[in-house]
């Protein structure tokens, strides 16, 4: 299996992703990790709440992995996204990609996270001390 794509309600493991993609035909792995930041535009974030249209999200992540493999000489891709309430510093997404050489690993990993943020039906609500907002919903 080339791709390990999951949406999880439990904490993500970077190690699980890097172990999955490690391949003896490859000299490079790039890993992107999205973590919960303590502020947005200067406003203090208490926690994030992620919701997914899970079955479609998995399909869209699969499409991204396939598109990435078509553009770069990728051996394996792991793409794990967390849902539910996430505290500061917790991992929201981990994407790991193995390639023979390093340049492709960076380009492919950046492509994956950029695409994920465009097309995968997952929504993030930022919860502040005095309110909450669905990110990017409004102009």
């Amino acid at each position, binding site marked *: 299996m080339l791709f390990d794509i999951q949406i999880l309600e439990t904490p993500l493991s970077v190690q699980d992703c890097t172990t999955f993609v490690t391949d003896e035909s490859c000299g490079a792995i790039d890993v992107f990790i999205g973590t919960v930041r303590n502020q947005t535009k200067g406003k203090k974030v208490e926690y994030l709440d992620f919701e997914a249209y899970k079955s479609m999200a998995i399909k869209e992540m699969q499409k991204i992995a396939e598109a990435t493999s078509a553009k770069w000489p990728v051996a394996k891709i792991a793409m794990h996204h967390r849902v539910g309430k996430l505290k500061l510093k917790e991992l929201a997404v981990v994407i790991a990609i193995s390639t023979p050489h390093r340049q492709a690993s960076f380009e492919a990993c950046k492509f994956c996270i950029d695409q994920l943020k465009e097309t995968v039906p997952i*929504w993030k609500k930022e919860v502040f001390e005095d309110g909450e907002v669905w990110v990017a919903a409004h102009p």
Partner: protein
Amino acid sequence: MTNTSAPFKILLFGITKEIVGSSTIQLELSEPTVGALKAKLRSLYPDLGTLNYLAVAVNENYATDQQQLRLGDEIALIPPVSGG
């Protein structure tokens, strides 16, 4: 509307769930297309019109406004995504 089809069930997520106040709704449509569905939803829930965009997925794929809806299709409203 007199010439109604049987009701379509629509899945709601994120801010659309909050605007509608439910995680699913059922609607009747005189014209069973994605475009007609969006128009009807915007007339019933004007706050949907304030979103950056509003897509519709049919059977877990993004759909165009022209796409026909069929009974049994899994239909979902997709407000602006913000994963990662």
